[in-house]
Structures are given as structure tokens and as C-alpha cells.
């Protein structure tokens, strides 16, 4: 694990859930609960096979928006720390896409913050995905 990993990152390379949880735990020994959300690529979507997913970001704005989400979550929920990593590259079925790790004294706040973070990331962070299917490429327009 790199000695210093930024808590908020957009990167093409894969990430390690274990390393991110370890990095979060290094920041405090007061965490009684750590909740993670790991988003992965599916091989089927909207009733059709998906060969791969291509991601695009608005460089600069996307990472700043993720940082703003982290700041807002730390202000809003009774949590101790947050880490978020989103890949922007081409991924295939089973590949990891996004990871959110939230640490809190108690689990309830960690669960609530983690759900809010992934729901809000989909609405506020300028990242787009295009699914490559047998019928051609299709930009995903909604954020379910």
C-alpha cells in the first residue's frame, strides 16, 4: 500500500478495498463501525448483455465534486472519516468501479452516510458511463 493515498481519488487503475479500509483505520482508533460500498460492473443491463463499460469524467470538476461530498458528509453525519475512489477507464464484467468507505463510532451513522454518498455521487459528480452491448454503444442517462 502506498504510504500516502489521497482519501478522494479518480484513477484508471484498480484499487484495493483492503488497503482503503486500512488507510481509513489509520486515521482514528475511535471507529466502532466501518461501512463500505463497492460498485462493480455487471454483464447484463436493461435486458441486454454488456461487454464493457467506458467511463468519462470532467477532469478537475469530478474530483472536486467528490471532495465536496466528503466534506458535506463529514458535516452532516456523525461519522469520523470517509474515503472514496472512482475508476475512469474501460471496465469489464466483475471489475471494480467505485468504492466508498465510511468510519463512525456507531454503525447507524456509517450506514446512512455511505448510502447518502453513493446516491449523491450519482447525481452530483460529472462522470458518465457508456455501455458497449451487442446492439452497439449506449450512454447511460439515468442514475438508478
Amino acid at each position, binding site marked *: 500500500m502506498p504510504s500516502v493515498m489521497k482519501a478522494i481519488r479518480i484513477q484508471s487503475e484498480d484499487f484495493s478495498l483492503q488497503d482503503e479500509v486500512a488507510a481509513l483505520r489509520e486515521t482514528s482508533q475511535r471507529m466502532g463501525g466501518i461501512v463500505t460500498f463497492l460498485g462493480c460492473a455487471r454483464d447484463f443491463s436493461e435486458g441486454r448483455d454488456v461487454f464493457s463499460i467506458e467511463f468519462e469524467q*470532467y477532469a478537475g470538476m469530478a474530483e472536486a465534486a467528490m471532495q465536496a461530498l466528503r466534506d458535506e458528509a463529514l458535516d452532516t453525519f456523525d461519522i469520523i472519516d470517509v474515503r472514496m475512489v472512482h475508476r475512469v477507464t474501460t471496465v469489464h464484467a466483475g471489475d471494480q468501479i467505485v468504492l466508498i468507505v465510511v468510519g463512525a463510532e456507531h454503525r447507524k451513522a456509517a450506514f446512512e452516510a455511505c448510502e447518502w454518498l453513493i446516491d449523491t455521487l*450519482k447525481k452530483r459528480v460529472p462522470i458518465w458511463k457508456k455501455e458497449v452491448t451487442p446492439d452497439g454503444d449506449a450512454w447511460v442517462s439515468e442514475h438508478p
Partner: protein
Amino acid sequence: MIKVLFFGSIADKLGKRDCMLSACEYMTIDDVLEAVGCIGVQPLLVAVNQEQTHDMDYLVQDGDEVALMPPFSGG
């Protein structure tokens, strides 16, 4: 000059990812949309200098970066 960036389905539709516009006085976001052929494109999100705005009457300035974006779909 004003730099206009296009993302996702909008970039594909226009066949380009960016273009430069000459800045002129009292140029609004709506004027930018008209100049790049994006009037009526819906849904459309707009950012000026990486800050999202909903004000289509916002006056852009020389050197601004305007991003025209479809709804986000990360995660």
C-alpha cells in the same frame, strides 16, 4: 475566447469534444448554446469554470470555460 467542452452523448451528437468561441459583450449561456448548436438539447447540465449553474442568462466572460453535460451516470 471562451472554451466550450462537450461530454458524453452531447459530444457524440456534435462529433467533437470542445470548441472555442469569440467572446462578445453580454453573451449569455443561452447565446453559447445557440452558437454551438445545442439549443433545445435536453436534458442538459451546464458548468462555468467547473461550477454548475442553472442560470441560462449568466453572462460569460472572456477566458471562461463552459461545459455542456448530459445528466451524470457515474457510480
